[in-house]
């Protein structure tokens, strides 16, 4: 008994102060929110970045602009390494989540915008959100980084967010993986079992767009082919801070407009 008390004293308190305090610094080599400098891009003739992208995340749009789809992006950094003009760089901004699939397209220096959940669900879930997690073919990296949110460093519980054991107890579903055909039925049954109103969160490149498996007949091109998605969290896997920030943004507990991110304790629901 005394040993576990001494250990508790030695191990110390490691819960991050975010969002009241600034977020922990991302590693130097971390690939976060991408930035595209269209002026540096060599134009339609150059296809270097598109050729080296494993998931066709980079596209030349009809307007002539180069766009990077964070929903397909694996954040591998290949395009940044290969571009001779340094037109693409990955910042250390971990704030990637969005409510609208179109908001995942990067065409310039685009700071993330605030996510808005509708008034009813924000009011219901702001102080207490119970989520059911379903791995629909995930490789266990997204699952592990979601699991880590429950550990003392991130401590999801202090926001009233918890992962529960049954869809009957849940307010929403957090899905990882490219929705394999073998998991489709189980996923749909779990979703149906959650009482309304509910939230659907797609976590990781596979859930957002099918990722590397989008053209595999055994998988799918993303969760939104099957269910209405309320929050997209890109990454392969998304850093726990990305998932956390996405959840808090969706509930209106942090703002992206003010910097550093501050916790909002009361919001106007108009």
């Amino acid at each position, binding site marked *: 008994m005394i040993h576990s008390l001494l250990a*508790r004293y030695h191990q110390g308190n490691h819960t991050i102060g975010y969002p009241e305090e600034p977020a922990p610094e991302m590693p130097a080599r971390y690939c976060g929110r991408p930035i595209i400098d269209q002026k540096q891009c060599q134009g339609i003739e150059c296809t270097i970045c598109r050729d080296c992208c494993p998931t066709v995340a980079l596209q030349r749009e009809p307007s002539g602009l180069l766009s990077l789809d964070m929903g397909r992006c694996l954040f591998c950094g290949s395009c940044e390494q290969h571009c001779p003009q340094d037109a693409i760089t990955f910042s250390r901004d971990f704030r990637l989540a969005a409510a609208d699939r179109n908001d995942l397209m990067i065409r310039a220096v685009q700071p993330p915008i605030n996510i808005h959940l509708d008034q009813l669900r924000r009011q219901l879930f702001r102080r207490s959100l119970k989520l059911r997690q379903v791995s629909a073919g995930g490789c266990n990296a997204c*699952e592990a980084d979601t699991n880590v949110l429950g550990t003392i460093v991130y401590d999801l519980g202090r926001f009233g967010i918890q992962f529960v054991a049954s869809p009957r107890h849940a307010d929403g579903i957090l899905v990882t993986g490219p929705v394999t055909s073998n998991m489709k039925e189980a996923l749909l049954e779990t979703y149906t079992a959650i009482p309304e109103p509910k939230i659907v969160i797609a976590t990781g490149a596979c859930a957002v767009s099918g990722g590397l498996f989008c053209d595999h007949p055994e998988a799918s091109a993303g969760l939104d082919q099957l269910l209405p998605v309320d929050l997209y969290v890109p990454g392969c896997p998304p850093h726990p801070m990305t998932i956390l920030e996405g959840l808090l943004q969706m509930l209106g507990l942090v703002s992206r407009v003010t910097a550093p991110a501050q916790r909002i304790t009361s919001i106007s629901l108009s």
Partner: protein
Amino acid sequence: MIDVAVVVRNTEPVALQDIPRLSFDVFQEIIADALSSGMYMAALPAVGNGRQAREIVAVLRHDQPGRLYLLRTGKPEEWPSMTGRFPQIAPFERELAEETGLQLSGHPRSVPLRYLPHDDLEEDEKNRYIGSHDFLKASGEEMHEVAVGPVHAGIIEPGHFRFLCHGETIFHLEISLGYQHRGIETALRNRLPDRRLILLMETLAGDTSIGHTLACCQALEGLTGCLVSRRAMDIRAIALELERVANHVGDLGAMAMDVGYAPTASFCGRLRGAFLNITAMLCGNRYGRGVVVPGGAACDVDQELAATMAGRIRQHFSDVTEAANLLWNSPSVLARFEETGSLSRNQAEELGLVGPAARACGLEIDTRMDFPTGAYLYYRLPTSVWFTGDVQGRAFVRWLEIKRSVAFILARLQSLPQGTIQQEVRQLPAEHLVVSLVEGWRGAICHVVLTGTAGDITTYKVVDPSVHNWPGLALAVRGEGIMDFPICNKSFNLSYCGHDL
């Protein structure tokens, strides 16, 4: 009899024509002979496209001398099962039958391994879809079935467990997997080795990115005779051992959680993330994606980074030591761990277990010792073995491995050899085969790569250690109370997606 087979070392390529092609009867006879004399089936790939496969290659592993034996045969219409005599071959036979459509006769449990969605199913197979699994049944007073999954209560991959229980005692556990099947092996057929191959390896089993990517890169380097620099070998080994330490620390915490011991569960939960963050210092990604590339490593470590990593590792290791010692000194924890989920040495050998689960039963097998490649050719880690084969044994082997891996990582960081870290990898030779073994944190990973006439990959077979070990879990819980299932499951901590591909 096994002398007929061609002998290779780990990552040593061989021309397909040099692998003796035997008649099916002789093929099975030689396999039987090998398995009775202490060898293990490492892989049994079908060559070619699933139902159109023409040949089957057997890869047999002989641990003590560190040699691999290869033989092949034409695909038969019917395969008389050898599982009755050699339980370790059970999953391989089921896999062959499902992939190639051959008739498996006499197998005690001839059910699909992964429920591959086939377009060209025979009429009598059309009612075989995942969820239609014909589970074993038992009836009687107080007999009942408990079904768990595919969606599990926690944040974990899907799989189905069907327990046949008498009161609270488990009589039999049947595990039905395949929910994670993404068609990775199919996607790798008939393609040139490109960046996508490496990325698929990294996400094959997302918590074993380094293990599988290293096995793949070793295979490509072996095939092309590419010599990786000593500096790159060391960086790769550092990444692999960091992956091992992070997962073992997480497992100790998870096992503590499952017996309700909050202190260690809480500390190790944090410390696992702390070790993942050290991997992220190396490459930006907590799971080591982007470190291992064909020809070497893509991320270098200068003296300053090495010193910072070493300092943090020492700090975290000190905290892990304190957290782990709480476990070994808590009678309440030991009462749950000891003599729970026990497997005998004999059972481990018969099932062909690998990794910490095998070493906890006293089997001294470790790919780093038996089939060393890369840095393990120059530096040896002691093999961590225990003898009880129970949950305590599997937990304690993890603790021993954490200690030894941390010492190894610190020594490597302190003495990285000079040099570049990436070599060019030439085109693959035509019609060759290579076997690549790596000791992942769950056990021996085996990749078998066959090339075609155009320097392309025709068949890529992946055998994750979990394929060997899932039957071990099913056997270990027999006779235990169903409330001990979570702790037994955590003590194995096997991969669902590594099994399902």
